């Protein structure tokens, strides 16, 4: 991630890159959504410009009212609400993905920025690094 030890010295105005974590998988059926979220939380320690994109089934990660009691898996959805505390506030959701799944912004458990596919494409294109889950 960093080319030299100097780059890590962010207190002295070190290099800050734009990182986008691209989430395209539904929660619980596979481990991708949870692993992606863990990596995003770790990334917060590096003081970079971090955003998350939710595309395709990734939008299901943000669905309200997840209740995993009977499933016997950890409900990690409240963690998305904690991202703000790590200065990760840019959560982009693709409009077309929401609509195809019959979801609206009101169905989501955290404040997001809804972008249409063209806006999402532009946002992705301006990143330095894209990491996909």
């Amino acid at each position: 991630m960093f080319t030299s030890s100097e780059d890590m010295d962010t207190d002295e105005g070190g290099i800050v890159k734009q990182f986008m974590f691209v989430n395209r998988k539904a929660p619980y059926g596979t481990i991708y959504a949870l692993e992606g979220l863990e990596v995003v939380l770790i990334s917060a320690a590096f003081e970079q410009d971090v955003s998350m994109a939710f595309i395709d089934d990734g939008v299901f990660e943000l669905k309200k009212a997840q209740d995993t009691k009977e499933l016997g898996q950890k409900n990690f959805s409240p963690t998305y609400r904690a991202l703000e505390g790590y200065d990760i506030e840019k959560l982009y959701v693709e409009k077309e993905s929401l609509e195809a799944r019959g979801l609206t912004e009101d169905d989501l458990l955290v404040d997001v920025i809804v972008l249409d596919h063209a806006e999402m494409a532009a946002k992705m294109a301006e990143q330095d690094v894209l990491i996909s889950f």
Partner: protein
Amino acid sequence: MLHIVNKSPYERNSLESCLRLASKGSAVLLIEDGVYGATKSGNCAGMVQAAMNDVKVYVLGPDLSARGMADRVLDGVSVVDYGGFVDLVAEHSNCQSWL
């Protein structure tokens, strides 16, 4: 015959293949990410609704609840618990899992 689908219909074609090849009178059980196929107002709802003329559709409740979709099950789909899953397997002479 019992058909089981565990993939999201928005990501894979498992449900589509299942519904194409399930004969009249079959049962289709949606589990794991497959439960999204049993929910209202998405693009896949129409396909499932149409299939229900020929097949009986069930969905696993704990997987719906985990995904926050328990309040938007398509009309005509039956929600079953783990015991109901076992009953369905026991009631049918054979089973195809559309992995």
